């Protein structure tokens, strides 16, 4: 008998406001380990906030955010550190550290969060850089990289700790179709080869249809549709249907 798949991320009645503006309103969903969830919605509907709540970079006003069974809301920093080791985060503009080379950007989390030796860190860093096609660019600073290379470098940094869950904030924004497809390939490979759960905030419906096991559509802070691509395409909600089909 197969064991039930474990929950990767679960939102339970999460609400978040900035001043008087409510960006998430009583949002609940969950995805399981090894699944890919694409979060769609118009700009300013709380998609990036969703990722930051999972990473506990923000706290919700109410509700629970469970990451791999642990509720991160109200956790202390030392407990959060353990949870964050399970998470990788690809930021919208990669957010590479300007003052560090690409190699140093990847080596930093390994040296800070693991007990690996210098040689082991070197091995892992070079391997991950090679995996994303930047094996020859480790000595470069972020300012010397193109948009696509930055995205791949940001992805490499997000993957360097072998996370169980990968969060990606608009991984294909600002990229041409071919480069965006390459990033999508890297994400799908991660899911199929390592069983990593993916939560991807995106405007790229083409990519979402290719990657997603589940689609969540946010509109004005509300979760208006959740399900497979086929289910959301048949949704009663007009915004959700238009977003996934256009």
């Amino acid at each position, binding site marked *: 008998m197969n064991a039930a798949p474990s929950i990767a991320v679960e939102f339970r009645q999460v609400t978040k406001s900035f001043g008087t503006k409510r960006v998430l309103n009583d949002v609940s969903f969950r995805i399981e380990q090894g699944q890919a969830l694409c979060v769609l919605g118009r700009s300013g509907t709380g998609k990036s906030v969703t990722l*930051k709540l999972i990473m506990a970079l923000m706290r919700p006003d109410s509700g629970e955010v469970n990451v791999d069974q642990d509720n991160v809301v109200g956790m202390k920093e030392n407990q*959060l550190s353990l949870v*964050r*080791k399970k998470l990788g985060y690809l930021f919208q503009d990669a*957010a*590479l*550290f*300007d003052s560090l080379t690409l190699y140093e950007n990847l080596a930093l989390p390994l040296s*800070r969060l693991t007990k690996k030796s210098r040689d082991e860190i070197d091995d892992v860093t070079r391997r991950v850089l090679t995996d994303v096609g930047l094996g020859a660019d480790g000595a470069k600073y972020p300012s010397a990289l193109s948009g696509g290379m930055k995205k791949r470098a940001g992805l490499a*940094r997000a993957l360097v700790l072998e996370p169980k869950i990968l969060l990606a904030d608009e991984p294909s924004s600002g990229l041409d179709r071919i480069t965006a497809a390459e990033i999508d390939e890297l994400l799908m490979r991660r899911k199929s080869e390592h069983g990593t759960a993916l939560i991807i905030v995106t405007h790229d419906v083409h990519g979402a249809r290719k990657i997603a096991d589940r689609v969540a559509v946010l509109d004005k802070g509300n979760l208006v549709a959740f399900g497979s691509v086929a289910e959301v395409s048949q949704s009663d909600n007009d915004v959700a249907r238009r977003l996934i089909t256009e």
Partner: protein
Amino acid sequence: MQWLGKWIEFVGKMGLFGLQVLVDSLRPPFEFVQLSRQLAEVGNRSLALIVVSGFALGAVMTLHTRSTLVTFGATAMIPAVQAVSFFVEIGPLVAGLLLAGRVGSGIGAVLANMRASEQIDAIESLSIDSFKFLVVPRVLACVIALPFLTLFMDFAGLLGGLLSEVLSSHIAPALYLSRAFDYLQWSNFIAPTLKTTVFGFIIGSVSAYFGYTTDKGAQGVGEAATNSVVVSSLLIIVADVLLIKCIFFLFPDTAL
């Protein structure tokens, strides 16, 4: 009265920020690698500016002092006036203001840019305490580097005055230096130099405050740089007044 409330809130927040710097600078883990990087940035890269400015200021001051003291037949006092004024006040204050301009704006802009481009979030997402990693080393670097930069400023000013006097009155360099140090006591030298650690703390923490706490995106970068220089320069001058009173209290000889 709304502005008063906002001003009090701002002062309170900046005070708490400075307090957090003090607490976190004593709490492990210590970011020695970051500190050495920042010392190189704050110290080494400011040295040329400090030395050239000190030298030029020393030469100019001597020219002005000479034109006044000639009237009283007291040109022999020029080296002493030059040394005392530089070591006691001009060196520490000008070094502090120059550092506020060069380093303060840099700290404000860099941290604001890191905030706008989500680099600070990225650091937090790696479970690294961004405050200890980014803010504390920058403030400590200012605290450590400024007294040394002040010494360079003092001696560069003295050299500028020496050159000016040698060219104007053909005084022997050894005699100039002897007269310069005749009136200088250790208390004239140590306390004013050490007070620059306070200036360094002001520059580092004020600039880091504006950069680290900005939430205005790209627009916040320019604002943080400008505010860092303006507020830290103003606070340095105000703090100087208070510190001089403290020095006079602790070293009464220096007030004579």
